[in-house]
């Protein structure tokens, strides 16, 4: 059972990392335009010679 002493904090830390990452994505407005983001990847970059 002593393994729990470090396993639980590790599990919580990893979960917390995920939570922090999610909250960061919300804060930075990455869910404001879900349709646009899906389409933007298909837009060709403007190249120098074009």
């Amino acid at each position: 059972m002593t393994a729990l002493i470090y396993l639980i904090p590790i599990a919580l830390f990893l979960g917390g990392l995920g939570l922090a990452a999610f909250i960061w994505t919300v804060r930075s407005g990455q869910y404001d335009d879900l349709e646009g983001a899906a389409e933007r990847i298909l837009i060709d970059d403007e190249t120098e010679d074009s």
Partner: protein
Amino acid sequence: MNAHVVDPTPFAQHLPDGKSRLELSVHGAHCGGCIAKIEGGVGSLTGVGAARLNLSTGKLTVSWRTGALAPMAITRKLNDLGYRAAPFDPKALARDADEEGKFLLRCLAVAGFAAANIMLLSVAVWAGHDGEMGPATRAMMHWVSAAIALPAAAFAGRPFFRSAYTALKAGRANMDVPISLAVILALSLSVFETLNHGRDAYFDAAVMLLFFLLIGRFLDHRLRMRSRAAAQDLLAMQATTASRLGANGQLEAVSATDIGVGDKLLLSPGDRAPVDGEIAEGASDIDVSLVTGESAPAHMTIGDKLHAGVLNISSRLIMRATATTDESLLADLTRLIETGEQGKSKYVRLADRAAALYVPLVHSLALATFLGWFFLSDAGLRVAVMNAVAVLIITCPCALGLAAPAVQVVATGRLFKEGVLVKSGDALERLAEVDAFIFDKTGTLTLGRLTLANQETIAPESLAKAAMLARASRHPLARAIVAAAGSGPLAKDVYETSGCGVEGLIDGARARFGRADWVGVATDPGQDEASQSSEAWFQLGDQPSVRFQFEDKIRTHASETIAALKDQHVNVEMLSGDRKAPARHIADLAGIDQWRANLSPMDKIARLKELQSQGVKIAMVGDGLNDAPALASAHASLSPGTAADASQAAADFVFQGASLSPVLTAYDVSQKARSRILENFAFAALYNVCAIPLAVFGFVTPLIAALAMSGSSIIVTLNALRLSSYHKEGAIR
């Protein structure tokens, strides 16, 4: 692309850092290609620093160095690219970064994280109940759970705690009161148990409760945001600008609200009159269909009165404002709309009605449980409190909180796919309750535009030649000819005489297309003015003249839709502002027996009020400005996507396309949604009937509470999802 271009200058914001910013609602952007075209096109204008299009909301934000370009260049560019754009009024636009939605999403994330991690610990505790886990390990598990649950609940429970606090302060009780009470009591009890090395703790139940309820809350919020975005979009379309003629004859763009009485305004073809006024110079054909519902345009000249909202069709006019926007007919209508909407906001949602019954019942049960255990048994205070809290937790309206929003999200998503935009969740509930449908005629039962009626009797050659003249005109009859003939060349030396017709040279011969007396055809003296305005004559050189007849075609599937509504024992009535003869014609075609014609907007409301006083719940379907007040005061309302902006703003549902069948679809889906919601409530009640006795008599363990709660939530959600796959038998396609 000769559509009307708005000058957005009055709506540009000048920021202190020397930049200007403009937010525009752009219509017609649907794909990545549109993003590239719009952002590239606008970004290439000199001086523009950044252009960013949000495809989900259709909002384009442009910023540029102040003075580097005229804001009009942006809308003109968008128009050239083929998109209709209207500026958002920065004053009217609430700071819409959707802070509330982000807040709920953060709460949801924290609750989800906490629920998942506490559940891992709880499952271990439950599994070790038969003695494999020692009391010390169990205590540690509980302490770790507490360390996660307490801060998580304090963070994620805020939406409920706040709302419960406001309600209690106002002396009311809402759904959030029992929720907050259950969460707080469950957590306190669990901490107490942990301190006393007890066996059972409800940390998982408390946090999971929050998690499920937040899902419901978030869905509900999303739905409301979507409808608010639609409303703001329509508001932008109404934020019209006008060209005012200065004392020295120079033109300036002003916001319609800045127009004063006596101002002279330039009205180009394609412009709508921003305020009430009269014609000061010029003569033109005026389309009044959105204001009065009459489909044929009227010819107006100096001194004639123009109502706000009428459309100038053929030639440039100068009008003198006789009222400001606050005093115009448009503003009167807006006020009527607002009064109607206030009536609507009194509607109590199904979920709230259920909660009003449910909350007192559950609280008295919990109290009875406490009293019963405390006085009738010798188990003591601790067991009595434990069981009373178990009752509160197990009855907490988790399924109730999810029951309505989940169904409404699925139903609106489904209707959206069928081309029906639903403006709010309770609109669905209201539409399901109606027992009468009232239709407007022009633009609602009909398409609202004239089409060529006697094409089969006209030689294709005559049609093609008439179209050579018609292409030069914006008049509805000319447009109908062009629509029938397709694309082709333009005649030479074309000249339009407002109120009469178009003339020009075809193969060297003089040709005229227009009114009978102007073309030179003897008219039937018995024929009235109205039927003359729905026909036109074409004459080329010495050849015999050709008669073109036009009609406002009825929408496809109109009679089927009306018949299907009647089959469902719904009364159908038609109210029209148009004259008797065309109204009777359309009513016969659609199969409507009850109809009235020659009605003013006030008459329409009066008829609605009369029916409402008899206890009839009405769904109004209309498109004109004259229908907007009726739309707002009806129990539920629908309008086609071609309707006046004010009407679309007032309606609960906006449907696209040339068919009337979306009305039926919306009615069917709303009824299905209502029965799903009621089923969900019934299920929640059934679940409580089973679970409450267990809780009252002290058999509920944290494991049972967790299973019951997630089980009921999942069943309610699955029942809601059934709605997305149903197919109505014999649905009109």
